[in-house]
């Protein structure tokens, strides 16, 4: 861009080429502005040497005003001066203004605008320069960039933690704390686990316990964490209260100089703390760092919270699925009993209250009515629990579809494997093909098979010498498919054989004895039969049959 002579800058000095250096200006107010401008101003002669500079520029250059006069920029400010001189030469040669940025020089960032000073007839009288100190702006930008980088770090951390398996979450958090510490150049960072009695302080990147401390010994610290306070101590020796004697000892033993601690609460309960500390030098924790690390600790607490909730629900799901799979009715009934107890408790208490209201002078019918309404509602609720349980117990009508029995048995044995292993038994499957096609409700048949396998495995759990095998066999017998589950346990007591499938007969300590009756009900609804007998030389065999499916159905 060409600067036309008509353009004049507010900071342009009086354009009087003949005026000798240092002479007082004919326009003192302009000189005043020149001198006081909050940016650097300079005027070079056509040889590119300083003619005039204001104090601001002198202070930017850290060279007195007088020391500039008659010199080139390179002579006054080595380092950045060469670039200024080159820009001046360009301006003199082309008559066009230049903008250059300089620095960092002594940690400073400067921006210079260099422009020609033109007299009448476009004669070049000299070169002017406006120099701005951009350091604060650059710093602010850097902080912002830094901030953005830290937020990205947090983003990465939370994305990573959301994916890792539950058992790795603690080491994941420790790693995240380490990363944040490195980012902010803090020597140490760690996750403290606060249990009901002790606090575990683990070194970062190590799985070993670094130190276990009684909660009572560091009551002040634990209390601060419990109250949700952030502790930012630049000198732990002087900034902790007198009562924090134990804390001071622990800090001294670990060589802690400055400490920053954030509570980690999960589900409203304090479960730990994240601490950062220095051992080399004291550190002032500026608000910026505290704020960032607070953000991180909140993110980590969130991750823990969410994971815990997820684990809880997936655990419940798994448990339910497991119960259903094994058809261990006893456990299911225990769960039901538990679920029914709450409404029953409410009903009993409400009924007692209602009866009391009737006796109590001055109480109103409304109070009685309210109690009765709640009783109705809770009665309904208890009924719902039972209905749900019935459904789970498989009382619903089977949904008959063609099933691949051998495949179903393979899947079932696979499912039963872990439970059997836990009981010290192995499950062996033997299929004699061809097996006639059958129809049934796959889930219910599976439940029956699992139940029989579980019973068989349990019967051998005690006092049976290895090999503790459960043999599952499947073959066609005439118009039926027959499945037999055989164990090598004690066998069934004589006389129990006929009553085995009656409800509430159990030889087991736990359980309500609903497993086998349920199996019987399911098989009979499928048009089949279930029987039990003792095997030779030992053990029991449970056998069920399913009728061959009609070809055209």
């Amino acid at each position, binding site marked *: 861009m060409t600067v036309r002579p008509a353009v004049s800058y507010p900071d342009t000095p009086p354009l009087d080429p003949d005026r000798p250096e240092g002479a007082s200006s004919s326009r003192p107010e302009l000189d005043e502005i020149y001198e006081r401008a909050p940016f650097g101003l300079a005027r070079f002669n056509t040889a590119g040497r300083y003619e005039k500079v204001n104090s601001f520029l002198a202070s930017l250059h850290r060279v007195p005003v007088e020391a500039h006069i008659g010199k080139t920029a390179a002579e006054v400010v080595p380092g950045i001066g060469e670039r200024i001189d080159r820009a001046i030469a360009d301006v003199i040669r082309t008559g066009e203004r230049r903008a250059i940025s300089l620095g960092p020089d002594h940690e400073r960032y400067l921006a210079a605008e260099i422009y020609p000073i033109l007299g009448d007839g476009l004669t070049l009288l000299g070169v002017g320069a406006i120099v701005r100190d951009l350091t604060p702006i650059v710093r602010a930008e850097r902080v912002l960039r830094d901030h953005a980088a830290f937020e990205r770090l947090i983003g990465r951390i939370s994305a990573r933690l959301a994916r890792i398996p539950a058992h790795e979450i603690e080491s994941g958090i420790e790693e995240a704390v380490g990363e944040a510490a490195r980012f902010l150049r803090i020597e140490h960072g760690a996750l403290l686990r606060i249990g009901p009695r002790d606090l575990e302080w683990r070194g970062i990147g190590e799985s070993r316990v670094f130190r276990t401390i009684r909660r009572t010994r560091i009551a002040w610290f634990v209390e601060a964490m419990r109250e949700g306070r952030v502790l930012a101590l630049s000198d732990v020796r002087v900034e902790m209260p007198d009562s924090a004697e134990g804390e001071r000892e622990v800090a001294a033993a670990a060589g802690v100089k400055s400490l920053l601690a954030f509570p980690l609460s999960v*589900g409203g309960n304090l479960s730990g703390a994240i601490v950062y500390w220095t051992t080399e030098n004291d550190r002032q924790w500026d608000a910026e760092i505290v704020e960032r690390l607070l953000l991180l600790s909140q993110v980590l607490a969130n991750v823990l919270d969410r994971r815990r909730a997820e684990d809880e629900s997936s655990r419940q799901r798994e448990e339910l699925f497991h119960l259903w799979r094994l058809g261990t009715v006893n456990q299911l009934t225990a769960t039901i009993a538990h679920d029914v107890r709450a409404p029953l*408790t409410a009903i009993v208490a409400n009924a007692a209250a209602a009866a009391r*209201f009737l006796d109590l002078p001055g*109480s109103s019918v409304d109070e009685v009515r309210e109690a009765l309404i709640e009783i109705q509602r*809770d009665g309904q609720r208890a009924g719902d629990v039972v209905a749900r349980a019935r459904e789970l117990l498989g009382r619903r009508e089977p949904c008959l579809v063609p099933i691949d029995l051998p495949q179903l048995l393979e899947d079932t044995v696979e499912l039963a494997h872990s439970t059997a292993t836990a009981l010290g038994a192995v499950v062996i499957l033997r299929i004699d093909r061809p097996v006639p096609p059958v129809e049934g409700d796959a889930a219910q048949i599976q439940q029956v098979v699992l139940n029989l396998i579980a019973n068989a495995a349990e019967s051998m759990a005690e006092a049976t010498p290895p090999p503790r095998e459960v043999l599952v066999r499947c073959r066609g017998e005439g118009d039926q498919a027959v499945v037999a589950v055989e164990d090598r346990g004690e066998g069934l007591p004589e006389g129990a054989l006929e009553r085995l499938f009656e409800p509430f007969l159990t030889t087991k300590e736990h359980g309500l004895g609903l497993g086998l009756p349920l199996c019987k009900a399911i098989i009979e609804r499928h048009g089949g039969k279930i029987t039990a007998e003792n095997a030779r030389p030992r053990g029991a065999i449970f056998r069920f049959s399913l009728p061959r499916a009609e070809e055209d159905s």
Partner: protein
Amino acid sequence: MSNGTVYVIDDDRSVCSALRRLLASHGYSVETFLSPSDFLRAYRSPETAACVVLDVGFPGMDGLEFQEQLASVAALPIVFLSGTSDIAKGVRAMKKGAVDFLSKPVAEDVLLPAIEQAIAKDLADRSRREWQQDLRVRWEQLTPREKEVAGLVVSGMLNKQVGLRLHVSEKTVKVHRARVMEKMQADSVADLVRMVDAVGGRGV
């Protein structure tokens, strides 16, 4: 006139509501909470005698763990309500100072005596604490030398022995001793022994 405050902690709203109704009809002030942490957050030391009725088997916080946490905030007697009849847990809870361990559903004539007993225990605890507090104030009014004398007297020493130990005359010991008895408002040495033990002043 309130018979005391009962804090009911149960994750089931119906149970909270029903117990509130029943206990209020028996003249208790009732506050209900859906979780132990809710309770711990809201807890302010009550003016009246109080107790906690706690459902055990909260997901996330064990009833026994809560008992420990509660003990660090306030010493309130706890009546446990259990959804399962876990005897081992019950025994442990009782050993830690629970007043009762009842299984759900709980009958009125079982629950109410348990609560009465818990409230009575809290009342007794309170007056014991007040007495101790009072004694501590009295104790702090003693001079260091008087505390020394008191400590030695309750350990069974005679005035003469105390004097020898402290290198003062028997007469001086008598004066100190009289001041101790007066300031502590003790009627007898036996009385003083109880008091000094209560403030932990033995062996000063």
